């Protein structure tokens, strides 16, 4: 079939897809809002259990990865393909750092016997149970998005190498970048809601 080269259309489509992601997380944010309203004290207590250091480091990592992604697009638009490729790889590397961080964080919590359906969790007050259930669900779903985003960007890097994403036709990378920024965006909210909730 013939190839559509409607960049504006591709971008509109991507944005529409991002809305579905926003609304997907939106359902969970709705639950978070309701439960925070219902259990403020328990959320406060449970929030203290999470490592603020891990959270802050991961925030810095993701924001920086977003910067690299934005720089990669700018570089490509200026025709500096090699630089762009390296920046994309840096972005993916930071995604990896984020996931490793997350792994250690989850691991520590699970080591303390706090994970969904665990006896340790079920012994907590209801509000804290909800907090940790939401924590695992939301950061877990976010983590899956980090993995997908990383994979998409790696594929974009591959497309650049084989010359199918070029300074003239880079909508794939641009849309991949939009997706990656969305992942960052979700984390920007998750971070204060779980690690700084007071």
């Amino acid at each position, binding site marked *: 079939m013939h190839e559509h080269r409607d960049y504006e259309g591709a971008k509109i489509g991507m944005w529409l897809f991002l809305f579905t992601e926003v609304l997907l997380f939106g359902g969970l944010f709705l639950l978070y809002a309701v439960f925070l309203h219902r259990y403020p004290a328990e959320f406060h207590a449970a929030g203290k259990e999470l490592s603020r250091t891990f959270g802050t480091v991961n925030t810095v990592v993701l924001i920086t990865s977003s910067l690299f992604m934005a720089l990669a697009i700018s570089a490509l638009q200026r025709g500096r393909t090699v630089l762009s490729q390296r920046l994309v790889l840096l972005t993916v590397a930071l995604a990896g750092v984020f996931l490793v961080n997350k792994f250690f964080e989850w691991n520590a919590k699970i080591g303390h016997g706090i994970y969904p359906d665990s006896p340790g969790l079920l012994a907590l007050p209801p509000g804290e149970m909800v907090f940790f259930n939401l924590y695992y669900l939301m950061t877990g779903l976010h983590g899956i998005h980090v993995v997908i985003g990383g994979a998409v960007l790696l594929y974009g890097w591959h497309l650049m190498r084989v010359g199918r994403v070029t300074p003239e036709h*880079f909508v794939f990378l641009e849309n991949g970048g*939009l997706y990656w920024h969305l992942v960052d965006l979700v984390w920007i909210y998750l971070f204060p809601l779980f690690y700084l909730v007071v």
Partner: protein
Amino acid sequence: MTGHNTAHHAVPVRTNLLVWAALMVLTTITVGVTSFDFGFLNVVVALTVATTKAGLVILWFMHLRYEGRVIRLMVFTAFVILAIAIGLTFFDVAYR
């Protein structure tokens, strides 16, 4: 349809770095203020900072500033719908 890609606006490196710096500063602020207790305003402060950061990411990193009216209106609609969904739910949970 348009066959090439001329409408694109390459964001200057400087701008990107500035946005990044602003995001870092806001992250420091939001972590920093947790040592103060504003009561129920804590959540408000945290979310205001988060929303400012989100705005920076959307407008510059996601290029919304450089997009046409159509996409901007669409983004606005999506967030309005999300706000409505959360907001109207509170007519139940806040009064139950």
